[in-house]
């Protein structure tokens, strides 16, 4: 009963404690994997310089602690990480935390807009398709869903760019705002929105297709359940069945998927941000890999791990809110 529900705070705290080992394991795993890859920061630096003699390289390595055994490097990194010190980025000549914070906003904006559009449009279209199952409307929606599902986001990005920027000239090709325009107030907001339209579309369509298909199946299943029949026997009209009896129950599996997919959307943003040259975490991750900027890369992964943990927590809260049978414990 609701009386026995523990305070939400103790639940949040417990989830947080459970998340710590997860994050630590992710960081250790990533660190070791990156060490296995050939090349390190010094290789990249020296490469930029156009080469250097072996003694200089050895001195640089010693200076950065890269001559130490891997487990010593790992230990040093983890100790610093414990106080949220991400180290220094040799590529950007700034603390990693500063670099990350500059980029975080763009990525969060892109993800939030993509996921919310995909989610809302997906459940609405899915519900419509289910209620008119096997009709022309359903077929049209299902075929559209299949097309979205089968189109790779990089291809879609390029096509959108070709049509709306190059041919029609309606939308900017890339970036997050018009350079040197110095917009303020609502002009600035509108400028950012215009820059986000195509990346959001490219990133959201595939997830829209996911939610659409799942929602369609879920609504069809719930519509056949006994309590919907009961409501019908009470004299409720079809529209009311949908809004009061079917929707909330049908949403449950879709919400689960939403939480699970947040991390894959984060991955998808790497491609989209790179194509549209959006200064976000995805683009930063790509550049850091190319430039062997290990500290920045680790910082991004740490941030992503935290985001995923937080989002999963929020999903569980939402789930408990939607399903009265679940009590947070």
């Amino acid at each position, binding site marked *: *009963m609701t009386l026995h529900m*523990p305070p939400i705070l*103790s639940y949040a705290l*417990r989830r947080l*404690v*459970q998340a710590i080992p997860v994050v630590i394991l992710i960081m250790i795993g990533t660190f070791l994997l990156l060490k296995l890859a050939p090349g390190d920061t010094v290789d990249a630096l020296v490469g930029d310089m156009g080469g250097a003699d072996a003694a200089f390289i050895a001195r640089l390595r010693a200076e950065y602690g890269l001559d130490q055994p891997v487990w010593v490097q790992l230990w040093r990194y983890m100790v610093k990480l414990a106080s949220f010190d991400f180290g220094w980025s040799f590529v950007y000549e700034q603390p990693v935390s500063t670099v990350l914070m500059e980029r975080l906003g763009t990525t969060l904006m892109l993800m939030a807009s993509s996921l919310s559009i995909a989610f809302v449009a997906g459940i609405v279209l899915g519900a419509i398709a289910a209620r008119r199952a096997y009709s022309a409307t359903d077929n049209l929606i299902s075929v559209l869903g299949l097309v979205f599902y089968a189109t790779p986001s990089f291809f879609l990005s390029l096509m959108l760019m070709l049509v709306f920027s190059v041919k029609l000239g309606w939308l900017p090709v890339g970036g997050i705002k018009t350079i040197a325009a110095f917009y303020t107030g609502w002009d600035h907001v509108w400028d950012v929105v215009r820059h986000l339209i195509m990346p959001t579309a490219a990133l959201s369509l595939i997830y829209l297709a996911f939610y659409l298909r799942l929602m369609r199946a879920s609504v069809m299943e719930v519509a056949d*359940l*006994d*309590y919907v*029949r*009961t*409501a*019908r*026997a*009470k*004299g*409720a*009209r079809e529209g009311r069945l949908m809004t*009061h*009896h079917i929707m*909330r*129950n049908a949403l449950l599996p879709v919400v689960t998927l939403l939480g699970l997919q947040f991390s894959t959307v984060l991955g998808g943003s790497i491609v989209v941000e790179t194509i549209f040259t959006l200064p976000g975490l995805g683009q930063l991750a790509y550049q850091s890999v190319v430039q062997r900027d290990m500290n920045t890369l680790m910082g991004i992964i740490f941030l992503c791990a935290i985001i995923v943990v937080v989002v999963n927590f929020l999903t569980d809260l939402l789930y408990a809110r*939607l*399903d*009265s*049978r679940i009590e947070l*414990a």
Partner: protein
Amino acid sequence: MTKTPPPVLELCNVQISLPKGADRPYALEGLDLTIEAGEIVCLVGESGSGKSLCAGAIMGLLPEPHVRVTGGAIRFMGEELRGKTDAEMRKLRGADISMIFQEPMTALNPQKTVGWQIDEVLRLHTKMSKAERKVRAIEMLERVHIPDPASAYNAHPHQISGGQRQRVMIAMSLVLSPKLIIADEPTTALDVTTQLQILKLIRELQEEEGAGVLFITHDFGVVAEIADKVAVLCRGELVESGTTDAVLNHPQHPYTRALIGAVPALTPPPIKAASDAPVVLKGTGLKKTFAARGGLLSGKRKAVTAVKDLTFELRQGETLGVVGESGSGKTTVSRIVTRLLECDQGSVELDGTDLLAATPRELRALRQHIQMVFQDPMASLNPRKRVVDLIAQGPIVHGADPAKAREDAKRLLELVELSPAAANRFPHEFSGGQRQRIGIARALAMEPKVIVADEPVSALDVSVQAQVLKLLADLRDRLNLSLLFVTHDLRVAAQLCDRIIVMQKGEIVEHGLTAEVFANPQHPYTQNLLSSIPGRDWTPPSLQTDAA
């Protein structure tokens, strides 16, 4: 001359057609039925007889256009319902004609409170204010005898018991005093003691309101308990109808006679001479608790005791019944003795070897001697395997020659009275009763000493149930098997078991020879169980059935 009021419901020559490819063209053919105000009419039939579709036709809730009414008249209070628009039907549904469904857990929306769901009926059909509706709903909850109606009003369906859920369902159906109530197997999913309470409740409210009730059931015990009139359906055709006394005690049609003949009488088997056969299965001090759900750090896991300190003995050639209501721990017992569930304490000796202490390797060998027959024959047979492979699988796993095991499987099919030609078919090609026979053949393939049967006939129609019970008794005697028979149905237990154990909340409250326990129950719980058996005062007439 005063005109008599029209009957509440009048069905004339109703015909419901089924889609092409169904086993018959019409679900109902030429059904005539009349329900007067204040009358309870039972519509009885086995699964597939078309009785639930009859309810759908009256409510206008058939899965059209595949299944639809194609002929006849359905008159409610003298008014033809066929041809009414959906909007007109919606006005009647829930207000003048209401329904009570079988499974109260799934028939209520899990996300809405009990109060909300009763309130919805009032919102849909009346112009009452919010406060008035709430008063009315709580009043209705009181009338169906729910303890603390005010807090039940705010509870979600999963927070109240099964019996209470059915009371909520009844409150919901009766809140607008409908003239016709259609109850579709309303007590089938309930325990026997709860069932009796619900039947009494339906009776009581119906007498107060003077409504006509169409009561759909497959259980003649329930019919004897509640009906004024009875109509018997067989594959869509009305084969017999009349007063309860006439149909139950003097059935005319061969099908009715066969059905009533198949109802297990409440007379236990004769007491066998004190058995000195060796004990094959012996449970000592069995205990099992389930940890309730709880988080790592929440620190408040409440353990639920399913079985505490259970001791029993099963002798060779004997049938020991384990009876009790849901939650009594009887299924847990069946899982422990087959070691499908690890128990916390105690021992189970199978022919002198402790099954619970056996290593995994020893256990595999021992399993051969103790086999299970499950409740749901559809769910317990792999749908992608042929019958012959299902039966032969056990022996093959235990090292039998595959070709020989398959030959034996065919012989076993004959033993359970199926055609050996069935061997190469898949489970879905069989009826429920035939599938349970396959389940029994599968258990017998291992040549076990003990068969543990967990509600093996609960999912079956009464005539099929009688055949499977007869088969089990027959095989037990021929093969000198010992049976541990778990059931909630005391009629079935009376039919088959030599001795019974009565369980309540994980404990044995009474045990002894079936005949003695039935004749002279000692524990109040057993007394309550026995007095709750529907139709306990009605002894099915002994009929010379020629159609069984």
